[in-house]
């Protein structure tokens, strides 16, 4: 099955965006983003902490609906899902 991953702001600079990826059924949200983010260590570090958990400020969405960071490890992605990962932009 295929899902689309969309990164925003500095995550996009580091990892690109609109990434179409083939995943096995039962793949969890966190493991999918982990595998994609690991392609760039800087990108990975921007999204995940040293324990492999999402930084608490990272916002996760699946098909326009918010996913709690703590639930992402047990939330399976489905064929056709659009996943958004973005940081709060802080400058002014």
């Amino acid at each position, binding site marked *: 099955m295929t899902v689309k991953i969309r990164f925003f*702001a*500095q995550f996009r600079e580091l990892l690109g965006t609109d990434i179409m990826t083939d995943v096995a059924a039962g793949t969890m949200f966190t493991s999918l983003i982990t595998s994609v983010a690991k392609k760039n260590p800087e990108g990975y570090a921007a999204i995940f902490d040293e324990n492999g958990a999402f930084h608490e*400020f990272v916002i996760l969405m699946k098909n326009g609906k*918010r996913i709690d960071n703590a639930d992402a490890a047990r939330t399976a992605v489905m064929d056709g899902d659009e996943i958004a990962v*973005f940081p*709060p932009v*802080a400058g*002014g």
Partner: protein
Amino acid sequence: MFSERELERYKRQMMLFGEDGQERLKKAQIFIAGAGGLGSPVSIYLAVAGVGKITIVDMDEVDGTNLNRQILHYDRDIGRKKTASAEEKLRELNPDIIVNAINMKIDASNAKKLVGNADGIVDAMDNYPTRYLLNDIAIAKKIPFFHGGIRGFYGQATTIIPGSTPCLKCIFPKAPPKELFPVVGVTAGIIGTLQSNEVIKYLTGTGELLTNRLFIWDGMQAHAEEICIERNPSCEACGSTGKKKKTGKKK
């Protein structure tokens, strides 16, 4: 009542929202938190639009590294208080409005009083802790909070109407770490101008506000999009089941 000079100044926009709309702008008070990258275009456009009273608060002095984006401040202003520089420019831009520039750090002890009777708060801050504080004040006073944030070629904005839209904490419950953020002036211009546009629409009662949507700007791709955002019932700032903040909330 408008003077002949004001009628001439605002002629082209009164074609859009009439003398009644212009009167609403004139009677309005807007609080702008920050006289930096976002605060510059926000205050300039609200001043020239004729918002009657603009309060702008900042604690910094103009630094040479500000000048790529903080268009209120000129080379000659390096070392001056940003508020003094801002007040001077805004008064020159429009002598028919009141500019109240306050050199102060916004914190929990003074935020409510600083905002006073403002009709809206514009978020032109560069950090989330102060944004959260102003979000709380907006909720307590039931006034809109016009959020904007920038980094590099990227920006975001949304209009928060307490009681009906998600608040800042619903959208971003946790602050990102502090950083020395890269930025080009045009990003501040794009997002700050969008915030001003929201304020003008809100005050004049025209158009559709940027509510329940997070506007996201990607200047590298010249692409804008929006994400639907929802209230969090357990939000600690505005949620019905969230804890009450000491600034108080109305529902």
